[in-house]
Structure formats: structure tokens, C-alpha cells
């Protein structure tokens, strides 16, 4: 556990200090790893406050740090209120149903789901679920294809022009097509997933396939001649060759691709939600913009910062995973 935590560089000196190793050095390290970044953030907050005060929009002043601070609490409050309402709703329903049941033991009734407006926190969860689903679907396609085209130069030549063609396409260009295709093909009486979810998922997957695919292919084709000779001398069959030699040696490149892909997936998702009105953080931002109250800009700014923080956390999680599975412990991963 502590070894895993040490992968988070700014935690390392804290852990070492609590283990009682060179307390003074650790304090100096903590200063370096914490105080200096803090100074940068503080400077940014000051500049932001100054700039915000001098920008007047039709919805009032541009939100500064204070408004954002207030709005973030009001968003959390709203979420709590909404949950209370939900609990109350189900309670009322239960009481009503119990009464019906008391009158007539055979009475049939429906449990109606609560249909309140999703709160900011709900939208965060929706976005996270969608991005992970899209990213996983993309990885499941991209890694095997990447390995195949990395192993086979002919296949690579065949697919490379297509990959290069599809790679730079913006999610916004795909979105209308995906929406129409999903509406046409994803028809079922009792759909497991909402259409909007499927649309977002496919759009995200389409855009974040490529970095993983290309990096995996490069990683696979960069296996040294020596490794290939070892495999040949041992007469490894195709499956063993892939699992014992190809996969491990291409893992560093594969993870580089996966991290890029996840970053793209997150950016694409917000855009897709905004344009297609699919539930999630993008929709939250768009709704607030349309709402146009004096608080809207502040609330949007909260969303913007949350989007950034989540993107950062997702990348850190990938980095930790990468460090865990990477055999090259000397490689500097940033």
C-alpha cells in the first residue's frame, strides 16, 4: 500500500516523514513539492480575481474566485435538497401504497420513479460513467487491432491511411451521424441503456480509439530483433509469442496511448453532451448558459474547474496504473 501511495510524488515525503526517515529532508521536500505549486495557484487566483472584476457581461460581472466558491456550495446544497425531496417522494408513495394495500390486499399499484431534475453531482456521475464506458469500448477494440497491425506490416499499410483519415475528425462532426444511426438501429422495447448514453458512448469511442491503436502498433513493431530471435529459437507459438513477448514489451507504449485516449475521451464527452443535450456535465453547462440567471456564469465556472480536476485525476489514475504494470521501473513517467 505505502509503495503504491509513494507513486504519488507529493505524498512520498509525508509517508517517509511519518516513517521517521530524515525528518528535516522530508520537510524540505514537502516545501518543494507543496509550497511552490501553491504559490503558483495563489498567483493565478489573484490575477483571476483582478481580471474578473474588470469584465462586465450581460449576466453581470465575470465570476471571480469568491463567486465560484459560493456557487460550489450552493450546488452541493441543491443536491442535498433534491435528495431530501426524493426521499420524501418515495416515502409518500410508500404510505399511499400501504393504505391501498390495507383497504384491498389484492390492489395493484406501480412504483413510480422520482423524476426530479438531475443535480450537478448527478451530472458528474453520468459523465464519469459515460466516459469510462466509451473508453473501455474503445480500448477493447483498439488494443487487439493495434497488436495485429503492429505484428503485420501488410495489415498496417492497409489500415494506416484509414486511421490517419479518421483520427483528426472532431466529435461534433460524428455526432449527427451517430445520433441518426443509433436512433435507427438501437430499437428495443426495454432498452438496457438510454439512447443518449449510447450516442455519447459511441462518439467518445470513435474519437479516442486512435491514440491507443497507433501507440500499441508502434510499441509492438518496436520489439527488438533480439527478443524476436529468442522467441524464434524457443519456437514459441503465436499465442505464447503475443502473451509472453509482444504484450509485455509494448505495455509502456500502450499506456502512453491509453492516457492520450482517456484525455481525448473526456474532452470529447463534454462537447458531445453539450451539443446533443445528452445528460452529463456538458448539458449542465449548456443549461446554465441558456438559463441566464445572475448565478449562471459562476455555476458554469464551477463546472469548468470540476471538468479540469476530473480530467487531471483520470490522468493520474492512468499514470498510477502505468507505473504499476510497467516493467521498466527506471523509466521516468510524467
Amino acid at each position, binding site marked *: 500500500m505505502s509503495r503504491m501511495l509513494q507513486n504519488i510524488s507529493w505524498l512520498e515525503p509525508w509517508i517517509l516523514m511519518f516513517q521517521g526517515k530524515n525528518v528535516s529532508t522530508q520537510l524540505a521536500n514537502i516545501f518543494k513539492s507543496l509550497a511552490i505549486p501553491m504559490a503558483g495557484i495563489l498567483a493565478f487566483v489573484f490575477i483571476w480575481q483582478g481580471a474578473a472584476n474588470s469584465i462586465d457581461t450581460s449576466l453581470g460581472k465575470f465570476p471571480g474566485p469568491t463567486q465560484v466558491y459560493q456557487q460550489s456550495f450552493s450546488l452541493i446544497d441543491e443536491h442535498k435538497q433534491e435528495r431530501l425531496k426524493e426521499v420524501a417522494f418515495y416515502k409518500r408513495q410508500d404510505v399511499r401504497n400501504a393504505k391501498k394495500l390495507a383497504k384491498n390486499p389484492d390492489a395493484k399499484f406501480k412504483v413510480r420513479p422520482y423524476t426530479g431534475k438531475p443535480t450537478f453531482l448527478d451530472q458528474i456521475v453520468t459523465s464519469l460513467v459515460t466516459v469510462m464506458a466509451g473508453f473501455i469500448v474503445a480500448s477493447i477494440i483498439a488494443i487487439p487491432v493495434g497488436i495485429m497491425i503492429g505484428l503485420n506490416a501488410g495489415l498496417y499499410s492497409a489500415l494506416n491511411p484509414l486511421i490517419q483519415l479518421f483520427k483528426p475528425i472532431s466529435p461534433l462532426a460524428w455526432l449527427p451521424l451517430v445520433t441518426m444511426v443509433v436512433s435507427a438501429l438501437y430499437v428495443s422495447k426495454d432498452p438496457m441503456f438510454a439512447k443518449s448514453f449510447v450516442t455519447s458512448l459511441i462518439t467518445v469511442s470513435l474519437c479516442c480509439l486512435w491514440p491507443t491503436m497507433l501507440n500499441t502498433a508502434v510499441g509492438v513493431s518496436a520489439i527488438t530483433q*533480439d527478443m524476436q530471435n529468442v522467441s524464434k*529459437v524457443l*519456437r514459441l507459438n503465436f499465442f505464447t509469442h503475443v502473451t509472453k513477448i509482444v504484450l509485455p514489451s509494448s505495455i509502456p507504449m500502450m499506456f502512453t496511448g491509453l492516457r492520450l485516449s482517456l484525455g481525448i475521451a473526456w474532452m470529447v464527452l463534454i462537447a458531445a453532451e453539450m451539443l446533443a443535450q445528452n445528460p452529463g456535465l456538458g448539458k449542465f453547462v449548456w443549461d446554465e448558459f441558456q438559463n441566464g440567471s445572475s448565478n449562471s456564469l459562476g455555476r458554469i465556472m464551477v463546472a469548468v474547474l470540476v471538468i479540469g480536476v476530473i480530467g487531471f485525476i483520470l490522468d493520474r489514475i492512468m499514470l498510477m496504473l502505468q507505473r504499476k504494470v510497467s516493467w521498466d521501473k527506471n523509466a521516468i513517467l510524467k
Partner: protein
Amino acid sequence: MAKTHLEISDVSIEFPTPSGPFKALDAVDLKISEGEFVSLIGHSGCGKSTVLNIVAGLYQATTGGVLLDGREVNTPGPERAVVFQNHSLLPWLSAYENVELAVKQVFKGQKSKAEMKEWIEYNLSLVHMDHAMDKRPEEISGGMKQRVGIARALAMEPKVLLMDEPFGALDALTRAHLQDSLMGIQNDLKNTVIMITHDVDEAVLLSDRIVMMTNGPAATVGEILKIELERPRNRLDLADDSKYNHYRHEVLRFLYEKQSKVQDIDQHRSKKKAESEVAEATKATA
């Protein structure tokens, strides 16, 4: 002479280049009997490694072929295990796992799990690496990596052990140490070995025969020197041994007189000087 175990018969190889085929080897002939230790020596670029790669099956000879126990071999296989120059251990596996990969592949269905484990540990202890079995290649020194590489090759129980400059990348002390280890193992196991080297002392110390190769292109076997020194050999005793020094001398003479590749320094200097004078003169006239 004992029965031929491995026969390299009239092997030539051409590599295609943009400016036409390049003939690296021309009619290489060599017969090796079982348990023999043969070194291939020659200047760099003379095609020593190419010979080894053809025997290993990693390259295909253009004409001629390799016979092992009377059968032609032209694809790679574990009965001709290779110790590569830069160890070629899989960096994501520990020393034990690197050997295990080979053992599992070769003895699948022949040895039980426990037997395999014992066999892997036995081979690692042969090269004195049993204390660091669970270390990954990056955690051990270059000499130790090469030991594991040798253990991996030995664990395949090869009919021929092919070594491509196995100690080339090591410092002199480590190299001497590993050479002694190899001699010890060779005494016990009596493997048939083909070793490539460019170290004259190493060749004389370890080999039963030294095959000296001419310079490329179209390199071939120049001379073969039989080393008739008593085994076990001791490098300290041999240092003053007249027979040993005679063999060394023979190899050196072949490399530096008959197949001299290095231009004489004085000659080289005077040529350079003449060239620069000509260049000056042309500049002056221009």
C-alpha cells in the same frame, strides 16, 4: 576423429542490397564432432555472426546447408540454443522466469512441475545465480545477466550451444571469471559449443579448435588451429606455457599479418599528408 555431429557444408549467403546482392560468406565448410568446443575468430564484419545465425536457423544459407546428426536444419529451434551477445533476457521477467519460459517450452509434457522447478534451479546454480533467481535483469549486473542467458541456453539441453560473443560486452575481470565458469560447466556437461569471439586469449583458453575466418566480403574459413592443451586448463599456469603462447602467436599472426585489416599507421599518415598537400595545391591554383 570422432563422428561428425554438426556439419556446415559449403555454406554461402548473399544479402540483397540496393546495389545488388552482397556475398557475405563463400563456401564455408566445417565439421564439428560431439562434445567439441569450437571458436570462430576473425575481424569484425567478417561474417562470424552470420555463420552462427545460419547454424541457429535465423538466416537461411543461399547455397549449402547445415546438418545436425545427419539432418538438415534451416529453422530456429531449442536444440541449437543461442547465447546472445547482449544477453537478450526479457526485462519483465525475473531470472527464474526467463529460464522457466525456455524450460516450459522445451520440456512441455516431459517433465512434471516439480521436475521443471528443480531443473531451472539446477541450471541457475550451475552459473552461480541461484542466489538472485527472483531478480529482474535491470537489478543485476551485466555479467550476471550473461550468466542467466547461459543458464537459459543450457536449460534447453541443446545438441549444440551457440554463443555469439558471449563475453564481449563485459569488463576484463568479469569476463575471466565467466570464462572459468564456462570451462567448469563444459568439463561436467561436455556440450558441443560454437563460440564467436574476437578475443585471442579467450579462444585459445576455451577451445578445442579455433576456426580463423578471412576478411569479408565473401569470407570463408582461413585456417583451423587445433588446441592440444590438457584440460582442465588454468589461465595462470598457461600464461607461461610455451605451447599456449605458440597457439596465441599463431592466431595473432593470422589476424594481423595474413588478414591484416588495420592500415599501418605511418603509411596511413603519409597518405593523409599527401592528400592534404594535393588539396592545398589545387586550392592555390584555383
